[in-house]
């Protein structure tokens, strides 16, 4: 199947009232390098389909840059629909611009000739950050609870340990190859059968990921949002998952 046809199929399934199809579409989108929905399908979708796609996204969000890509992909359909539906997408996009400032807001700001909707979203999100910058030096946020520093350090250690554990489990090198913990030195040389090899530097492998801000600022609110979206999807599709 040509890429275009696959894309169109995935997009149709992402807009589907059938739960299983939406699940499959989401799983594929999650594992893909990037999200690229078919505009032809988006523009032909009706209001209910668009709303379900948006609610499904809220219920089970994508991560990082895919968030911005998916919402941008949906936008033309919502702009054509107008009215309340457009406002729903605008609210969601603004929320995600605040939630993922690097993956969403910064990327959207670089788009040449943004749509009216996108311009409004960028304007609202930037106003939010501007207001926050204005209070960043306030006395009201200049203190923490006793023991906060120590707890934050502990959290950091736990998180790094978990990342390390996860990386080792997923890495073939870590699992199959011999691992030697280097104690001293900024380069390493291997002694093999009496011969010492030339020293080489270490290579760092890293991956950056933006952590969604609102999962910290309003974790409870984000859970409630997901539950409400799930319930609304059930209402619109007339059934359970």
């Amino acid at each position, binding site marked *: 199947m040509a890429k275009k046809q696959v894309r169109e199929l995935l997009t149709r399934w992402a807009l589907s009232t059938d739960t299983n199809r939406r699940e499959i579409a989401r799983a594929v989108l999650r594992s893909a390098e990037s999200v690229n929905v078919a505009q032809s399908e988006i523009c032909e979708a009706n209001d209910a389909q668009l709303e379900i796609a948006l609610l499904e996204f809220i219920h089970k969000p994508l991560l990082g840059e895919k968030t911005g890509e998916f919402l941008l992909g949906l936008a033309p359909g919502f702009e054509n629909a107008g009215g309340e539906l457009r406002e729903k997408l605008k609210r969601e996009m603004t929320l995600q611009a605040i939630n993922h400032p690097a993956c969403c807001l910064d990327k959207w700001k670089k788009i040449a000739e943004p749509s009216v909707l996108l311009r409004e979203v960028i304007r609202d999100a930037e106003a939010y950050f501007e207001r926050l910058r204005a209070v960043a030096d306030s006395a009201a946020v200049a203190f923490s609870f006793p023991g*906060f520093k120590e707890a934050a350090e502990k959290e950091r250690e736990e998180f790094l340990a978990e990342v390390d554990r996860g990386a080792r489990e997923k890495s073939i090198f870590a699992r199959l190859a011999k691992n030697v913990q280097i104690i001293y030195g900024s380069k390493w040389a291997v002694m093999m059968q009496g011969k010492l090899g030339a020293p080489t530097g270490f290579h760092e492998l890293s991956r950056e990921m933006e952590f969604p801000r609102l999962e910290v600022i309003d974790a409870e609110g984000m859970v*409630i949002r997901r539950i409400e979206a799930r319930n609304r999807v059930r209402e619109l599709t007339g059934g359970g998952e």
Partner: protein
Amino acid sequence: MAASNLNQFLTEYIESLLERTTVEKGILKTGFDWVIYQLGVGKNWKPFRLPFFRQPSAGVPDTKRGEAEFGEDISFGSESGKEYWIFVLKDERLIYGNWTSHKFDSDLRRAAAPRLSQEGLEKVESVRIILAYNKDEDQGGIESYDRLIGSLPTSIGDGVKLSFERWNLTRIVEEIEAHVLTPDLLPQHLSGQFRYICSQFEDFGFGTREWENQLVPNWRDFLELALKEPVNGRKLRVIPVCLMILNHYRKDRAGSYPGWIDLIEWAMLALWSAHQRLPRAGSKNAKEIIRGVWLGLYIGELERYFVEVEGTLTTQHGFSVGRQGLGVGVDAVNHAYRAYWHLGRLGILSRAPQDFESPGNPEYEGFIEEVITRSAGWLVRCLRANPAALRPLVDLNHIELFLTWVILWQTGKQKDIYEWLCELESRLLVRRVHKELSVPFIEANSRLDLVAEYAATGDRPYDYANSSSYLLLMLLELCFSLCESERDELVERYMRRVVKAIGEDGQSLVKKEIDLQSWVPPEDWWDRILKGPVLDGIAVTTNNFDQVTEKAKPLCERIRDSVEEVREKHPWKMRGRDVPLAAYILACIKHRSPLPPEFWRGIIFGEPGERSRPDGG
């Protein structure tokens, strides 16, 4: 702190001092002379003659008695030896009637003839006689002074210049503000300890372990020493002066402002505790001093603070700005901690002026209305903008929730109360049921360290407790301030979803119910809370109002019956207003002590035995 407030408290302190430092029955009474001595040292003058012996150790300075002083109370020389200042001190008003009876005239004449042949005064070229009095004056007194000075010579002996100055209370305060706003201003037995506190205040950040474990205990010990029996006006007035000096030591660090307020609060509790110890008769002046510090310094400062931080309260996610940790669970706990710190103080700011209402005074009533309306405006915007304000962390946060409710109730914001309680219910449910959330459910023993540990590691600490709740029962009772239909709906929701964690399908979402508990404080709660936590009394377990009989009463009726039963069997009265209610509420916050349920039951359920509901306004 506004300059006018600083001036007022310092002025009152200086005015309260007697002329001489004395020791009576082993008790030190610091005098005005000590202040002038410190002023001279502050101006880099060399003390020449003092009315007391300085003690190197922090003891009581021994006073000199029976010596002929020739009008000179204290004198100083300059570094070069060419200038000589003689102070004639009076703790009397400079008025025509006192001019001779209190020896203004005779002491000035004597002082105007100093013996410059004394050792150490050989190089003097200029002598200044300063009449310093720490009271006010009238025109007759000033003219008496001017006439005398006009008649005295302008030189002594071989051309030594002689001049005169008059320092009234205002001038003395100005000089002190400019030169001696340091721990040295305090009586000698306090200044050493206070100096240490000032250096800790400079070094430690508010909210750090060092602040809590070192500075606060030292400050409280100091307050106890400063307010040792017998308490009098002078001792009481030293406290705001200490706070002003601490303010002087505040750095530009943003966190120093709430830190300073923290120290003011401990001082206020010490003052109100002293208030309780004052004898019934003859204490009117002392009580007024304490009241003046409470309103003029603490409440005034709280108001200034909230005007300054209004932006944070009302900006979306204002309390969550500035990620400090990794940015996950512990930060969320910190945001809520900050939010609840502010909710508590906003509640006190709103409550405090009402404790001194003057019935029938329309101007004051208008002022109170303005204060409450403004607080409510800030509060509503804060609740809408900051999810952290809807995240109580520990059971003791019931105090801040009560204050939130009271502000909304007093301004008739029934709709906002309903929406607030609804939102709170949803968020508490989510924390109860969704274990993956980084912020755990409310810790029953109010151990914030355990909340932080849970949030940091994701693992429930062994001694983390959340199976009982006084806070949740309070929320249920607050629902009784709503109209019947809203009350019934919310009470059912809280009970079914949060307390019992029963899902929409009737299945349990969490293994164990939360046990709702009430509390009857001991009868001497009012006498003890200002000094420390009060945790004894009677715990009342409610069995969650379950009834086994077939014809169970509606839940709301069961709750109301239980409240009445407890109030009837263990009556506990709200006290009269000698010490303001806001001070008691502050004491609960600072001492981490529960607020007695009568604080809200009295409003919602009326007097014991009444079956009334508030009209919401």
